[in-house]
């Protein structure tokens, strides 16, 4: 039998223009209200935001583009796939898996019917005249 399949993991990035939550930083231990995300009267955060470098309305798309830019020395480069195509690709993977498993069952079948079996031979008779 051939060696088993070795597959490397990949990482999918799901990107949309949904905003990413950027909550206020919690009050430090020992302060008046420890652990509270305190806000000022004007609605701004007393301790600043958890990701201060994110502009207002920072989206998943913005974050992805920023990360991608950083990873590619200032260029933006990636391969994209639509949700529909992702569904097709998932279906294709399942179809391949189905085929591998069914072929495996065929191998098991042939193994069962051919190994440890008594040979069926016809009888040979030679009579005297």
């Amino acid at each position, binding site marked *: 039998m051939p060696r088993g399949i070795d597959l490397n993991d990949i990482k999918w990035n799901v990107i*949309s223009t949904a905003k990413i939550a950027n909550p206020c930083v919690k009050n430090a231990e020992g302060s008046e209200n420890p652990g509270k995300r305190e806000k000022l009267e004007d609605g701004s955060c007393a301790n600043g935001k958890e990701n201060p470098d994110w502009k207002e309305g920072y989206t998943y798309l913005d974050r992805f583009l920023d990360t991608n830019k950083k990873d590619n020395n200032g260029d933006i480069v990636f391969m994209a796939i639509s949700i529909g195509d*992702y569904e097709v690709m998932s279906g294709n993977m*399942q179809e391949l898996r189905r085929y591998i498993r069914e072929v*495996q069952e065929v191998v098991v*079948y042939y193994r069962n*019917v051919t190994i440890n079996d008594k040979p069926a031979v016809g*009888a040979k*008779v*030679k009579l005297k005249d």
Partner: protein
Amino acid sequence: MQQFFIAIILILGLGCWWLYSENQTLTFNNMQLEVAIKQQEDAIESIREAYEKQGDSLNGMINKNAQIEAEKNRYMDVFKRHNLNKLAIVKPGLLESKVNKGTKNVFDTIEKDSRELDSLDDPSGDINPNN
């Protein structure tokens, strides 16, 4: 008269000898046929066992393939039941973790399936240990 008796005895002696040799041949042939019948019975039994084994294995394979097909359809049903487009727009982070987990799971199961196949030619190994 004496010559007549001698002739009769001679004829009877020859007859006995002929019958004896015929009897020997028939006994030998009978033994050969008994052996042949035994061999044929063994062969028929062996063929019957192989036929039953084939039938059982074939049924097992058909059932297993139906299960595999059903499992694939169950996976594919997830896409029918959920609108991934909508989910990706609203909660991309949630979908991302699910998609990555699902992909890893599929890769792992494919690797596992292929290892099971690889172990089939190991005579000491169990066939389909997980089935």
